[in-house]
């Protein structure tokens, strides 16, 4: 009986157990279905999402910098190149504790507070790159010690970067400008896609103006990366398009000669080929080394340059505005003759002063005490007679004076192909009212006629103006770009761009003025005769000028050493000189400003001698 009971119990239990097993099996099946549903959701329903995420995970677009275009002068001398340098890069997103990492790096590489400051500045920028440079231009020792310790620094890498280099350094910076670190403002105007992972951009001068040409187009390396960000293999390469090489109109040798001719003085020289507007030399002195900027200038050095009292970074050739001084006289003479206000034979008797009729004002004086005697227009130019021009200015009126100056391009930008340019000032009654709130007085016209008062020009405008005289009125847009060479090796010459010419009723008027200018240099009574020096090997026409500082009562074209002695150097007048040569076949037109020194014609002589004699001899 007990046995039976047990047996019955056994089968009952077994059945019970089978039922429970079945329930358990159903439960397991349900759970299994749950897993399958989950997998279906991930793998089928959300496949696109996760597939994209996986691709995102594994691919990285590493930008490849295009090679910046090289810059040559008109004779093919290299002015700007790219040199490889090692830079220490930080992949910021992959580093948790930047501070600690930088401190660790300090133990093997000399990282200055300035480097860190620069790094932090770029860190704060909106368009941040994947890799930020901490230090550029590592030394050989630093490179070696980094490679030894590299395992300690995941996310830090060494990169070869191409760093801009200017072999002629400060000689050429006035035209070239330089590249520097991309700043916050720079980002606003550029296609940030094209500057991924790059640090430098043209800041000033041609480097800035032709940035798009020189930059080229960024390329990409599509690499597969692993979870640690290490590239595993390259999937494909979209090669960058290198920037175009450009040739400048600048003759770098002439440029150097001009710089040397200025000696220790400050000033500016602009030399233009009158036949096409090509700028042969663009000099501003003092100058500075553009190579300071190419690997990121530190703020101390920058401030020193920026706030130096002699302003080396200020482009005097295109930005400084000076009073014309007497260099204005040929332009006014042209207008007086052309409008018939005077004839070539018109003469005045110069007593050494000029007084307006019915005026209680003191008389306007000539620089030469006792005057120039009987003066016609040619003598007035040659000897730079102020009284003659005072006289004709009252006949011409300011409107006609402004008219001729504006036709020569004064008072507005020349649109040279660098951005740093001033427009100068050609004052008119309207201009005066607007800017000073005062009426135009007859006296304003009188001092305007000798290029003083508010009449202001840049050296570039002056050179452009004298080039037009040399050309008998034919005018060209002054420019620095000679040719562009793109990757396909086609060298495209820049066509000269003609501006509206100045036509005179009587073309002979040109010769009257040009001959007078010839006498300025060649006639012993000419205002530049002594300082230009005798016997040039070419025919030359010029005109002196003095930019008055602190309103000296008398503008002295030929100051004696005695008259200069009492004046401190920085208060002495600037000397101006415009010239072109040869007269019959003009090759070069010059405008020279020497600050606080009268030597401008001397500078011109050195430049012309080189360009028209020495350089030609060297070529032959």
């Amino acid at each position, binding site marked *: 009986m007990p046995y039976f009971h047990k047996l019955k119990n056994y089968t009952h239990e077994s059945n019970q157990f089978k039922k429970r097993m079945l329930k358990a099996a159903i439960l397991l099946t349900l759970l299994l279905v749950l897993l399958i549903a*989950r*997998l279906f959701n991930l793998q089928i329903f959300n*496949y696109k999402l*996760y*597939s994209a995420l996986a691709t995102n995970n594994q691919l990285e677009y590493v930008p490849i910098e295009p090679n910046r275009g090289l810059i040559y002068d008109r004779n093919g001398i290299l002015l700007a190149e790219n040199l490889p340098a090692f830079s220490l890069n930080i992949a910021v997103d992959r580093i948790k504790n930047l501070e600690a990492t930088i401190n660790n790096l300090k133990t093997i590489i000399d990282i200055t507070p300035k480097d860190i400051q620069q790094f932090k500045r770029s860190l704060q920028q909106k368009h941040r790159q994947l890799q930020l440079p901490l230090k550029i231009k590592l030394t050989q020792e630093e490179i070696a010690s980094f490679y030894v310790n590299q395992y300690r620094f995941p996310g830090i890498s060494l990169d070869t970067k191409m760093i801009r280099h200017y072999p002629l350094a400060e000689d050429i910076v006035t035209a070239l400008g330089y590249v520097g670190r991309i700043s916050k403002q720079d980002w606003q105007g550029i296609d940030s896609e094209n500057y991924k992972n790059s640090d430098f951009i043209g800041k000033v001068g041609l480097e800035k103006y032709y940035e798009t040409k020189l930059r080229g187009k960024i390329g990409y390396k599509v690499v597969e990366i692993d979870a640690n960000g290490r590239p595993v293999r390259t999937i494909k390469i979209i090669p960058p398009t290198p920037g175009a090489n450009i040739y400048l109109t600048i003759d770098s040798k002439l440029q150097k000669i001009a710089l040397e001719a200025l000696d220790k003085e400050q000033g500016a020289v602009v030399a233009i080929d009158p036949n096409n507007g090509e700028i042969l030399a663009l000099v501003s002195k003092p100058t500075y080394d553009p190579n300071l900027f190419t690997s990121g200038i530190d703020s101390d050095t920058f401030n020193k340059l920026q706030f130096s009292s002699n302003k080396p970074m200020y482009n005097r050739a295109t930005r400084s505005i000076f009073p014309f001084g007497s260099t204005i006289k040929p332009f006014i003479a042209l207008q007086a003759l052309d409008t018939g206000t005077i004839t070539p034979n018109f003469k005045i008797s110069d007593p050494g002063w000029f007084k307006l009729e019915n005026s209680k004002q003191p008389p306007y004086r000539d620089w030469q005490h006792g005057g120039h005697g009987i003066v016609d227009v040619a003598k007035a130019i040659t000897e730079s007679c102020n009284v003659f021009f005072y006289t004709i200015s009252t006949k011409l009126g300011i409107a006609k004076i402004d008219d001729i100056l504006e036709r020569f391009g004064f008072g507005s930008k020349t649109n040279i192909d660098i951005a740093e340019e001033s427009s100068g000032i050609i004052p008119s009654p309207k201009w005066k009212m607007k800017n000073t709130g005062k009426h135009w007085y007859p006296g304003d016209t009188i001092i305007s006629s000798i290029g003083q008062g508010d009449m202001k020009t840049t050296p570039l405008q002056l050179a452009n103006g004298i080039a037009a005289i040399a050309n008998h009125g034919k005018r060209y847009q002054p420019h620095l770009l000679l040719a562009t060479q793109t990757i396909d090796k086609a060298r495209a010459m820049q066509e000269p761009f003609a501006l509206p010419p100045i036509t005179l009723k009587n073309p002979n008027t040109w010769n009257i003025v040009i001959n007078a200018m010839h006498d300025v240099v060649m006639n012993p009574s000419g205002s530049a005769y002594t300082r230009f020096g005798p016997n040039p090997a070419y025919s030359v026409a010029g005109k002196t000028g003095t930019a008055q500082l602190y309103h000296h009562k008398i503008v002295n074209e030929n100051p004696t050493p005695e008259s200069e002695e009492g004046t401190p150097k920085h208060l002495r007048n600037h000397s101006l000189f415009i010239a072109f040569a040869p007269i019959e076949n003009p090759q070069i037109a010059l405008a020279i400003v020497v600050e606080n020194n009268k030597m401008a014609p001397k500078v011109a002589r050195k430049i012309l001698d080189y360009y028209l004699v020495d350089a030609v001899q060297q070529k032959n």
Partner: protein
Amino acid sequence: MVNYNLLSNSNQKTWDKILAKVWQRSHLDFMLLCGILLLGLFGVGILYSASGKSMVLVWHQAANFGVAFIVLFIFAQIPASRYRPLVPWIFGMVLLMLFAVVSVGAVNRGVQRWLNFGLVRFQPSELMKLAMPMMLAWYLCNKTFPLRIKDLFFSCIIIVVPALVIAKQPDLGTAILVMATGGFVLLLAGITWQLIFGVSFLLMTAAPIVWHFMHDYQKMRLFSFWSPENDPFGSGYNIIQSKIAIGSGGWFGKGWLHGSQTYLQFLPVRSTDFIFAVYSEEFGFIGCLLLFAVFAYIIGRSLYIGTHAQDTFSRLLVGSLVLSFFTSFFVNIGMVAGILPVVGVPLPLISYGGSSLITFMASFGIIMSVQTHRKLIGS
């Protein structure tokens, strides 16, 4: 020729007979063995990919399999009735070892799980996965069903004490596994629905207390389970990368050795806990179904053996071992697929590593032994 043929034919028959005899003596279950070997092959194949084509790892795992198979073989030889009286002693010893681990265990990755016997280091918590079901089966097999409250209480102690000790190591994964397995056994042994709900309610109220005693990193895991996107590079990283791996597999996967998440090392612990993500990335949804089918086949066969076992002890033992196997499977896949928190539970028979492999092979040995040591009654 004819003679020879006859001879060979009869020879063949004798050989067949001998083989059948040997097979019968080996006490292995053919159907179960096929499933296990199939999973083993899967595992080694995936491991080759997951390890970045490391033959060293593959050979090592094959050796693990060899050892584990010997263990299986040994367990298959022992009829359950033989060790049934010893079960409380075994359980007691394993529990003692667990305590020993907590107090003096070797430190491995900051957690104490291993007992170091010089050459051999092993995890007593793994042994507990065997000892606890045995103990429960032993305790419950002569109780009346459905269970009385007293029996239930003692069963709960048998489950909870080792689970707590394991959790203390800390090894939350194994603790949960042990608990879940115990729960399953109780379910099989027969408890009323009221009780199930009551216990669930108790568990829910206990959750905040458990939370209080949890380690920070365990809390982080739970956090990141709920919202992995909050901390994509920290604690949520594993889950996100694992989901990406699985999801990007699509219908048919990226192909063996072609899982980008795997060979670019985005997947964490891909040879062990997250090996399923490797598999599903490379073989896709269809591949997963195939793998599940093999698992289902093994579980089904074991359940069949359980239902046809001759005594309650064997039935309960087999049932709980199978459920333990299933729980590991479910928790691992659930965690890799992001529906369960990340607790360190390997995928049975697939994940790299010897400890858990040996445990599961031992339990299959026990299951086979139940099937092959049947007394022929009633015939």
